[in-house]
């Protein structure tokens, strides 16, 4: 009797571990990064199907709630193919984020993607885009009224030291 109890407990532990690992993998696949106060970035690597899109949205929305971010930068540089279905998923992400008060900026659109979208007759006119993450950040900072300024006479600071003066 106790042997089968032990076996049951062992297999429960095992399935819990498997479940935790699954969660970790999911989280790694859709990393939502807070790049600045109020700015989230979501780099999408790989294809975007319905299941992945739903998981992405849920992770992103939760992060918006947790951080109160008002700007989301979706980086689609790593998305291989953009078609009607993918565009629809991206638009859903944009719409859902907006409902939580966050504006979405899509970066990483290539010339080829742009052409595909034009040919598909898809209207992404309601969405702000920039070609690179750097440009996206610039826009996001501007929107938040932030400016990156070069400090005068600043010697180069070694990143190895622990006492950086900011």
């Amino acid at each position, binding site marked *: 009797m106790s042997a089968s109890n032990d076996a049951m407990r062992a297999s429960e532990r095992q399935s819990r571990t498997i479940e935790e690992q699954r*969660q970790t993998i999911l989280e790694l696949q859709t990393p939502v990064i807070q790049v600045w106060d109020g700015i989230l970035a979501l780099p999408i690597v790989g294809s975007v199907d319905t299941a992945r899109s739903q998981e992405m949205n*849920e992770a992103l929305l939760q992060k918006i*709630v947790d951080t109160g971010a008002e700007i989301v930068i979706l980086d689609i540089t790593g998305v291989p193919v953009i078609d009607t279905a993918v565009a629809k998923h991206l638009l859903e992400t944009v719409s859902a984020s907006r409902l939580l008060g966050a504006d979405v900026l899509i970066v990483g659109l290539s010339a080829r993607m742009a052409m595909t979208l034009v040919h598909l007759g898809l209207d992404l006119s309601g969405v702000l885009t920039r070609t690179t993450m750097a440009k996206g950040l610039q826009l996001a900072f501007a929107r938040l009224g932030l400016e990156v300024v070069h400090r005068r006479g600043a010697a180069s600071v070694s990143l190895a030291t622990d006492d950086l003066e900011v």
Partner: protein
Amino acid sequence: MNARERIELIVPIEGESGIVNARSQARTIARDLGFGMVDQSRIATAVSELTRNIVRYASGGRGEVIIREIAGPADQPGVEIIVSDEGPGIADIANAMRDGVSSSTGLGLGLPGTRRLMDEMKVESGAGQGTIITIRKWRRRSANQLTLHD
């Protein structure tokens, strides 16, 4: 080995109060069956849409909503909801399932939206024949739990 009885609830609909009643029962059962927050919301919303049609179009706003626990071919757990009435019926189902201005403005029967929220949907109806709509949602193995914020 306990043979748990599968959950099945019959919600008679007779007028407006049925909409809130049916959708909150559906949510409760979905929650009890282990569906995540988002799926609970999808299921409750789908039930709300379909039940409203009963109240709007069937005489006396009379109909029935059955919420049942089901198991799929691969033994995956799910919920099946059957919304039926003896109302005027849908003459052109294909048209009703088409996205249009009425669905995006919240008018119309809400069938395309319901279809998107659910995994499966079946509409049996005809002019003067009443309507039976069956919807199903399967529980995903990892239920994403979205926490509430205040």
